[in-house]
């Protein structure tokens, strides 16, 4: 059953790619993409609950397990929300002849982020992650402004360089495994995990660090995050949402899976500590740049750096609570950051600028979209009653072990700084007097409001109630990571 659903998840966006590439009609491309996103999300939602025991397909190249299925769920939801939002947003671009190209790339990008977590081979996974870069570069540069091309160029150069380190690490993992499994074998996650206890742990440590830096670049962990604010702020808003809510998680999966393998190879302390340190750095960088930020989309981008740091801390602390918190945070962040980018897109279009200094009295001009955006801002800082409060609390509790208390304490301080810094920007945008310029548009558009509502409502629900159905999923994921069947 889970294989059938996974196949639907992988086929639907590809069908949309084919259709959008073939057509010249903007409306048809729009609908094809939206339909594909709906089908994908419908198939992806039940997936994690059916994947308690890992299922294989395509000669073992495809793996549906709790961790992968969960990331796919997050990516599919963001894909759906972003597709709904894109309908309204991209029409404003007023270039209908380029829309089929946009949706071709968009569905293709969504497909790569959905495929990578399901790939059951460290080499193939690397290729899938590399593909996400190649497709999304053109989405980042889609608007062809000097800024967006600059962002796209920096994105592809920085991320390709980072990923080449991940490739080196992957080759070294293969080499370490070949000492146990013979010169030629399929580098599945299971094969690596099985061989791990007999691998040379010096070599595996080096390999893991390379992979951590490599995929960490893609996941936006500081200090390799430099491409992220540019790419997130210069791409069209639906693309920013997909980058932040889907792509970053996709890259984090590889780190998590290989960390489990490295730990089985006898490098018990270092992988977790390295991940915690990078997570901590990401939170510091996020906090510093959030406080002094001027661009509204860059604010959201640095908040993504911060939240990837929080997830890295969760996985780094480990244990069933840490992993559960990180996975829950992944979903919450995916929904919340989509909401935030959608709101930023609306305001950017309405006020005609990304500069927060020109965005004033949002609440009185946009009663509905403004209220949703403000609620999202409260949520993203980790305040109750929203989902991120619960997941950050879980991660914080997971960190209260003798090894990592220092990290948990620093995390708490940084969260307070970010809370104050982030909401201060919103206070000024909502309640500061004297609008320098009136917004050019007064309405947010039905598609935008619908997408924001659909992203915001579950966020509140997930904050009030941690669904008990999720517990077995998180438990299976953390047990698989600890038990060496990643």
């Amino acid at each position, binding site marked *: 059953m889970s294989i059938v659903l996974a196949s639907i998840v992988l086929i639907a966006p590809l069908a949309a790619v084919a259709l959008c590439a073939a057509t010249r009609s903007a409306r048809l491309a729009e609908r094809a993409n939206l339909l594909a996103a709906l089908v994908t999300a419908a198939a992806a939602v039940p997936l994690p609950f059916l994947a308690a025991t890992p299922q294989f397909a395509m000669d073992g190249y495809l793996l549906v397990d709790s961790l992968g299925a969960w990331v796919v769920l997050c990516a599919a939801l963001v894909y759906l929300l972003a597709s709904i939002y894109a309908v309204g947003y991209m029409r404003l671009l007023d270039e209908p002849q380029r829309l089929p190209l946009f949706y071709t790339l968009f569905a293709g990008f969504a497909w790569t982020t959905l495929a990578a977590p399901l790939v059951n*081979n460290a080499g193939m996974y690397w290729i899938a992650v590399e593909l996400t870069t190649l497709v999304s570069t053109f989405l980042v540069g889609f608007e062809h*402004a000097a800024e967006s091309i*600059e962002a796209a*160029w*920096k994105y592809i150069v920085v991320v390709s360089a980072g990923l080449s380190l991940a490739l080196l690490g992957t080759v070294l993992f293969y080499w370490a495994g070949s*000492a146990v499994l013979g010169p030629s074998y399929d580098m599945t996650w299971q094969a690596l995990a099985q061989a791990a206890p007999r691998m040379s742990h010096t070599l595996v440590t080096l390999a893991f660090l390379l992979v951590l830096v490599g995929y960490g670049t893609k996941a936006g962990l500081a200090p390799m995050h430099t491409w992220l604010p540019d790419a997130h702020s210069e791409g069209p808003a639906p693309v920013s949402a997909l980058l932040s809510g889907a792509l970053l998680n996709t890259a984090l999966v590889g780190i998590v899976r290989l960390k489990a393998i490295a730990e089985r190879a006898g490098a018990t302390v270092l992988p977790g500590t390295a991940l915690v340190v990078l997570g901590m750095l990401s939170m510091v960088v996020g906090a510093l740049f959030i406080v002094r930020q001027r661009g509204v989309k860059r604010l959201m981008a640095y908040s993504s750096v911060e939240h990837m740091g929080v997830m890295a801390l969760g996985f780094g602390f480990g244990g069933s609570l840490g992993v559960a918190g990180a996975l829950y945070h992944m979903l919450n962040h995916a929904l919340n950051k989509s909401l935030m980018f959608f709101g930023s897109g609306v305001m950017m279009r309405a006020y005609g600028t990304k500069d927060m200094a020109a965005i004033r009295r949002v609440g009185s001009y946009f009663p509905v979209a403004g209220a949703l955006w403000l609620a999202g801002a409260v949520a993203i800082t980790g305040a109750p009653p929203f989902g991120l409060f619960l997941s950050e609390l879980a991660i914080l509790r997971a960190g209260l072990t003798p090894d990592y208390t220092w990290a948990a304490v620093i995390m708490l301080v940084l969260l307070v700084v970010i809370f104050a810094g982030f909401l201060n920007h919103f206070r000024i945008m909502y309640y500061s007097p004297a609008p320098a310029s009136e917004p050019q548009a007064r309405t947010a558009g039905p598609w935008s409001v619908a997408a924001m509502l659909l992203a915001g409502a579950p966020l509140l629900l997930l904050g009030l109630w941690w669904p008990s159905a999720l517990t077995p999923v998180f438990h299976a994921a953390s047990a698989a990571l600890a038990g060496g069947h990643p």
Partner: protein
Amino acid sequence: MTLPQFTPLAASLFSLLAIGSLLLAFVMLGSRWLRDYMYAFGLQSWLIALLSAAMGHYAQVPELYVIALLTALFRGLLLPYLILRILRRLGVDRELRLKIQPATTLVMGAAAVVLALAVSYRIAGAMGNPSSVVVLALTVMLSMKLIGFLMLAVRHEAISQILGLLILENGIFLGSQVLVPGMPLLIELVILFDLLVAVACFGVLARYLVEHAGTTSSLELRRLVG
């Protein structure tokens, strides 16, 4: 440890090819003419293709002949051709403003090789002292990695950055031929293909850079900060 033991002739052939590739990486570091980079890269790819073929012969892995052929075609001919096209279209022939002179860069490259050697010895020790070819391959792989990053850091022209990335890839490819000759063919093929797509993407983006940002030098790409 299941690494194959090679005859002295094979071992010296591998060493020669690996060192030749490393020297070509230094040629790129020492020159400021973009065309030199491209020729050095093409030649390096041919050396790696030869290495694959030799490894296929001595380690009896027939798949490596296919890899050798494809490496020569893709990396040795097609990629340099694509880069030449990009070069012509951009109309830039050398690095104009070098912050660090080629001579200094060469010294930094040499330091990178020393670091790579130290790491390789450490790893080789942990792997139970494999043959010197393996240590050499590991050293060359890591050195080319570091040199590629050096290129990315000190050169600003778009084309130099593409070539820097290609050196990174070549280094990994060279190392993997010696360290893991049995790596599944499928992976290597897809990586080759991926590289081709990547260079095509870089080409398109470089054109956009000229059209929309008006420059191909990363020194002038400074609109986005903070």
